[in-house]
Structure formats: structure tokens, C-alpha cells
């Protein structure tokens, strides 16, 4: 028990958990975009849910508990349900395996690879990045910040949601007058 506590305090468990969640996130993400077994959007959506949940795990590891909750509630809960609804609504058949254009694939990989390599190089050049984590995710502090310094963006987002709402109604109503 003490050993476990030790491990926890030294962060070993977190480290292990990090690796687990990170691997889970990435693997699920890969399965979202390229599932060798199914090309159905439903599968993609399901794996996206998994990705999001594992990310929530990462958030927890980063002590962002509130955001982890939001992540699961909003993303995995609301957004993904929306996705699934739409998929079902559209009654999408499994996507036909159209011929993958090799040229497109290769150039796409090169482009993305290029971007990733630039990102990673930039990251590598930025020192070792082994500072100890400091911040404790306090929901209270977060809320205070949100409603003091960031009131205005917050309000704008509310307008944005209104607009989105109107937009969705306009776009999906069967008949408009």
C-alpha cells in the first residue's frame, strides 16, 4: 500500500496512466479516420467517443477535472449523440470502398507528415519541457476567471449559440413557411 502511495506520489501511476490514455486516444483516433474493418461512419463515431473519453482521462491527469467532465458531458454526451442521430437519420449505408487514389494518399501523407515533422521539430527545439506540473485545476478559480476577465467572450459565445440555434432550425426545418 505504501509502495502504491509512493508510486502515486512520485507520479509513477500518473505516468503509466498517461501512457495508457495517450495510447488509447491515438489508437482510437486512428480508428476514427481509418478503420481497416469498417468504413461505416457509425464505427468512426463510436471510436471518436472513445477518443474523447480517453482524452478526458488525460484531462484528469492534468488536473483539469472540470474540463474533463465537460468533455464527457458535452462532447461524448451531446455532440456525439448528435452525430449518431444524424448518421441514423441519414441512414447512411456503409461507405463503398471507392478506390483510394494512391497519388492522393501519398501526397496527403507527405503534406501531413511535413506538418507533423515541423511541429515536432519545433517542440524538440523548445528545451526538454520537464518542468514540474504546478497548476491545480480548481473549478472555482476557473469559474471566477470565466465570469470576470472573460465575461465578454462568454457573452459573445452565448450570442453564437443563439445564432447556431437559429441556423439549425432554418437549415433543418422541413418546410419554411
Amino acid at each position, binding site marked *: 500500500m505504501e509502495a502504491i502511495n509512493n508510486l502515486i506520489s512520485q507520479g509513477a501511476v500518473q505516468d503509466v496512466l498517461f501512457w495508457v490514455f495517450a495510447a488509447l486516444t491515438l489508437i482510437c483516433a486512428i480508428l476514427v479516420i481509418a478503420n481497416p474493418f469498417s468504413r461505416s461512419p457509425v464505427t468512426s463515431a463510436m471510436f471518436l467517443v472513445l477518443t474523447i473519453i480517453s482524452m478526458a482521462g488525460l484531462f484528469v491527469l492534468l488536473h483539469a477535472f472540470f474540463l474533463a467532465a465537460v468533455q464527457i458531458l458535452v462532447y461524448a454526451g451531446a455532440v456525439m449523440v448528435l452525430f449518431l442521430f444524424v448518421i441514423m437519420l441519414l441512414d447512411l449505408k456503409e461507405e463503398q470502398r471507392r478506390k483510394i487514389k494512391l497519388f492522393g494518399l501519398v501526397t496527403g501523407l507527405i503534406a501531413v507528415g511535413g506538418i507533423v515533422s515541423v511541429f515536432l521539430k519545433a517542440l524538440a527545439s523548445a528545451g526538454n519541457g520537464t518542468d514540474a506540473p504546478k497548476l491545480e485545476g480548481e473549478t472555482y478559480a476557473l469559474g471566477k476567471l470565466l465570469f470576470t*476577465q472573460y465575461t465578454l467572450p462568454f457573452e459573445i459565445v452565448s*450570442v*453564437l449559440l443563439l*445564432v447556431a440555434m*437559429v441556423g439549425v432550425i*432554418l437549415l433543418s426545418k422541413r418546410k419554411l413557411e
Partner: protein
Amino acid sequence: MNASLISLEISVIGLGLVLMLADLFMPAERRKFLGYAAIAALGVLLLASFAGCGSCSLTGTAFHGAFVNDGLSLFFKRLFIIAAILVLFVAVEFSDRLTAISEYYSLIVFALAGMLFAASANDFAMLFVSIELITITFYVLVSFQRNKLASLEAGVKYLILGALSSAFMIFGIALIWGTTGQLNFTELAAVASQFADSKIFLLGVLLVLVGLGFKIAAFPFQIWAPDVYQGAPTPTTAFLAIGSKAAGFVLLMRFLFSAIPSITHSHALSTMLIIVSGITILYGNLCALPQRNLKRLLAYSSISHAGYLLLGVAALNANGQAAILYYLAGYLFTVLAAFLVIALVLRQLETEDVSGLAGLNQRSPLLAATLTIAMVSLAGIPPLAGFFGKFLLLKSVVEAAQTTGNPGYYCLLFTALVGVVISLYYYFNVVRAIYWSKEPKDVSPIEMSGAAKLTAWLCIAGIFALGLFPNAVLNFALLAVGGLK
């Protein structure tokens, strides 16, 4: 906290809500006239802003520095309001092709609110949310003609690419904030120079520029513009061409010259700006050359104009920034004049081919003159607004060339000239189509409502005024960019 600074924005949002509510109480056939109410309200706001009454034209910062009201934001806010007014005029003319017209008006007003916030945004959170407000509103506005496949297709294209650019931008913001720990532009400016060597920071800057480049349709992020311009309802296209672009520019200028001026003036970034500007000009003009679809032509021309505007950014001096402002003001009237004509003329036509303009000078001399003046101004010919704007932009680049001695500026100047020459060709093709087509199919006169006539005259007056009496606007623009570095 100086919350009264945002009274203009609040009024605009309120207006949007009122419009939406009024819809409920208006009979369907009268709803189109809600547009005039919106115009009137915006007109009042504009006057208030000019008259300085209330707190519409106060300067200062609010919300912990996230919101700033200065000359620059004031200039752009007025520009946006004028744009919205004119777009609303066009929208009223276009109303017979739109269902749910009052929602359309209110969405325009909400987009305007987003733009107003963008004009005042002074931190990344504001930048992000205001851009998103504009963008998401535009998703809806673009795909508003639900019964038209092109409109929906344009909407989807704008949606996917817009989201993609948002993703890049937000990642960039994350990196910038991660390295510097600052979200506020003013505070960032104080520390930015320390991070000049940080690759992550530079990466973040570039990714933010990707997002902004998308908004202004600069190469290589211009790819969406033609399809979206073509598919969207004409008033939306007009608002995209001026409002969205101008919002992109005000944010770009804030970001480059207020948040990270020390980085902007570095060699790598300034060279990039030069190259992007040059290629954008060339790309837009070259692609427009064989184009026959009028809206698509204007899309390409809009890309090239983004390039010209970037000249002022690339020049990295106050005159260049002022020139951008001036140019946008001229561009506002010009583009709206063009889209007004398109909205009115191509009403019956399925295609938007240039040939649809045949015989326009007989069908409606005023519209013919309006479009001609718009094209001539876009081509940059005196005595219209476009000429003086281009003159100012070129002048600023020459200044930059002579103060820095960077040979890239000379190449850029040359490129800009080549672009202008190419553009003459397709603009005059349009003019030729108006006056000198072989046999016009349709010679029925075009009825213009009084409001449409008023709009046309307003645009013409604006184009001429900016070309002939540039003094006041130019001084204002110079004053407005005083805070930028």
C-alpha cells in the same frame, strides 16, 4: 470596468434580437420591409457613432484589456455598419429569393455584431469567439437558399474549410499562449520579443496567420472563395467579400502590429508576407482571366484584392496600414455596387454568366453605369476610389522598399503592377459585355425600387467621393493606425 464601451455592440445584438422577435408579429408579405427598419436602426447607430453621442465613439479599453475601442476599431466599426446597411439594401432586393427573410436580416446583424467585436478584439479569446461568431453566422448565411444545391454545397465547403482553418488557428493560439502565457495582445507585445527564437511560438504565430489568411482569402488559403462566392446568395457574397474580409484584416493588423510587432518586422515573416501578397495578387488575377461566371469572377477578383490589401501589410509601415483602411473603404462601395447589380440583373437568369449583362445599358442605364463604375474602380482607374487606394498601397510599398532596401519589395511592386494590368483585361470584359454585346436576348427594362436606386447612387457617390475627396477619410485612416506598430 468600462462596459459602456460596448454599447454599440449591444445595440446591434439587441437589434438582431428585435428583428427576430418582430418576425413573429409581422405578416409574411411585409417581413421584407423589416430590412428597412434594420437599415434605419443601423443608420441611427452609424450617425451616433459619427456624432459621438452616447458612448459609441468612446475610446478606451474594457474587460481587462480584452476589448479595446480605438481609432482602428472605430474606423472598422463604421465600415462594418455601412457595409451591413448596404448589404441589407441588397438583401431587401434579394428577398423574393429567400425564405425566412427576417431571420436572414437578423443573421446579417449578428454577423455584424461579430465583426464589431472583431474590430475591438484585443485578446485571443475575443479574437477566437468573434471570428467564430462571424464564421458560424456565415455558414448559415451562405447556405441560406436551401432549395438551391449550389448554396448548400457552398455552405458545406465553407463549413469544412472554415472549421479546418479554425482548428489551425486555435492550435496556434494554444501554442502562443503555451509559450508566452499571454492571451492579451498588449501584454503579449511586451514579451513577444523574448520569444523571437522560440520555434513553437513562431509556429503558433503562423498557425494563427493561417486562420486569418483563410478569412481574407489569401493564397494559399483562397481555395474556398470561388465556390462559396458563387454558391452563396448574392447579399451573403457581398457581405463575405467586404465584411468578412475586412474583419480578417482588422484582426490581422491587430495581431501583427499590435500583438507581435517585433516578430512581424523580422525578416522571415516580412518575406513571407511579401511572397504571400504577390502570389495572391497573381493567383486571383490569373484565374479571373478566363472566368465567365460573374460571381466567380468577383471571387477571384476579391482574392486579388486581398493580395493588394496585403501589400499594405507587407509594407510594414503606418502608411501601408492607413492605405489598407482606405482601400477597404473604397472596396466596400465598389463591391456592394457590383453585387447590387448582380442581385438585380441576374434575378431571372439561371446562370450568372457575364453574357447575362448583355444589353444592360438599355435595360437600365443606372445599373449599367453602376456596374461600370464598380469595375473601373476595381481596376484602379482614376478618378475613382480604387485608384487612390492602389496609389496609397503602392506608395507605402515603395516607401518600404526605400527604407529597408529589401529587393523583395521591388519584386512585389512589379508583381502588383502585372496584376493590375491583367485585371484591366477582365474588368473591361465585363464593361464590354454591358455595352457592346452583339445581340442582347432580353431587352425588357429592369424595374428598380426606390431603395435600390438609392443604394446604387450611394455606392456611386461613395466611389467617387473616395476618389475625388480622399482627404477626410485618409486623415481618419492615418489617425486610426496611429496605435499600430
